[in-house]
């Protein structure tokens, strides 16, 4: 095609808005008073606070991904069995959280589960302990709001195609529901599950909008640390933590593709 040059604005855009800033970030993280230096990385990797942030980030992302996968498979399975019109409505509903402002979500959850939140009042009336929205448990219970719809949307096309044919075949050959799930449906859904898990995991490694709106700078996560450092204009250290975050996310995604390859 002679029109290949049309890609030039896009390539320029990527270089200018992703490539160049990332290179300057890398350079900044490796520079100390004008010289090549690993001091920002050494400091980050020897500071208990930063190491804790790193660990918290990985645990938080893994936990959230696990929740999203467990919940998302069942939700996607349910949605796949709905009549077409209802399915459309539900899938459009699932598209809302992705482009909804983290502030709106935070506000909604504060009204429901904040100190005087309605759900917490109901829990108190029932004699149950309240859920503290501003704790780790609170954060873990907010993020499925984003992650389960996101995961279900990723899995939806595949599960749509597999559920009908496979489950019928499995039942016809005498498999019990649990066996059909374990040996037939789940293995055939694996590529979709891993793709969804990758998207959720990568998103959660960097997630911080809603966290920031709910708990400010109180929770020690890499993203929150970077935010605090950038607000104080400590860009070198922020850059080093940013590179660590990118490398960790990349490594996690790499491991997920390894699982897929081994199964194939």
């Amino acid at each position, binding site marked *: *095609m002679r029109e290949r040059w*049309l890609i030039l604005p896009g390539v320029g855009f990527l270089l200018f808005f992703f490539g160049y800033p990332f290179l*300057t970030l890398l350079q900044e993280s490796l520079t100390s008073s004008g010289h090549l230096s690993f001091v920002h990385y050494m400091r980050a990797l020897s500071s208990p606070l930063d190491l804790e942030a790193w660990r918290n980030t990985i645990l938080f992302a893994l936990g959230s991904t696990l929740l999203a996968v467990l919940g998302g498979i069942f939700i996607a399975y349910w949605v796949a069995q709905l009549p077409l019109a209802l399915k459309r409505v539900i899938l459009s509903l699932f598209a809302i959280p992705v482009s909804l402002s983290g502030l709106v979500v935070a506000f909604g959850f504060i009204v429901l589960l904040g100190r005087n939140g309605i759900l917490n009042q109901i829990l108190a009336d029932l004699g149950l302990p309240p859920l503290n929205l501003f704790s780790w448990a609170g954060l873990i219970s907010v993020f499925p709001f984003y992650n389960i719809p996101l995961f279900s949307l990723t899995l939806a096309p595949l599960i749509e195609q597999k559920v009908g044919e496979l489950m019928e075949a499995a039942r016809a050959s005498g498999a019990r529901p649990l066996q059909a799930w374990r040996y037939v449906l789940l293995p055939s859904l694996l590529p979709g599950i891993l793709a969804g898990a990758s998207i959720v995991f990568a998103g959660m490694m960097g997630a911080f909008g809603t966290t920031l709106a709910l708990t400010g700078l109180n929770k020690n996560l890499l993203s929150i640390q970077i935010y605090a450092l950038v607000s104080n204009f400590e860009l070198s250290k922020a850059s080093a933590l940013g590179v660590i975050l990118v490398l960790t996310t990349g490594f996690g995604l790499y491991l997920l593709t390894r699982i897929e390859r081994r199964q194939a």
Partner: protein
Amino acid sequence: MAFILFLAYLLLPMLAPVVYSFSRVWTGLLPQGFTFAWYHRVLTDPAYVPAARLSLTIAALAVLINVLVGVPTAYASYTWRGRLGPAFRRLMQVLPLVVPPIILAPGFLIAFNRPPFALSGSFWLVVFGHTALGFPFFLRTVYAGLSGIDVTLLNEAAQVSGARLLARLRYVLVPNLLPSILSGSLVVFAISMGEFEITSLLAGFGTITLPLLLFQSLREDFRVASAVASLLLYTTLVALLGLSLLRRR
């Protein structure tokens, strides 16, 4: 049953700001009284009106740049034969995963505060930030649109009848892609209107957008915050409603 509970879990946090914003008081279990007072206060507030105008300007510019850059890019990389085309599309899928938005803030602040690309003032920094955040979403939507039409066939037909590149873009490609260009634009618009986390780092003190004010009033004035949060929610809903109407056609 579990499915109904999950739907409630999705819908209640979205309904809560709306109910809150129309209620006079809400301290007990149920809200009391109906009022437009909080919306009225937002619409007459000397800080919120310029902030809303600024947010709209930034969102419109982010959409404009995305359309100008994204449509030719999507088209060229989609029709590119050989390995490079698919590789480029794959890169666009992976890029937003590996490079989280938080990285954009320090990256932009370092890259665009020094020569050769010093952007004085934070306005364009915010515009470019929102443009970059929306770009992968925009491309994804246009790719989906391209896969729905037979680009090669349309192109050949137009070429045979003597249409040059510009004419083909203008009369063949863009009209056929219009629904997906519009829905991509709506997504970029919605993301830009609600973005506060990266914006707060890039904006400094000069560029106060609507979500940045909301971020402040989340601590100070919960009432006004509920109205602003609802307004942002309506923006997203209108954008997505438009999107699903476009899909149906």
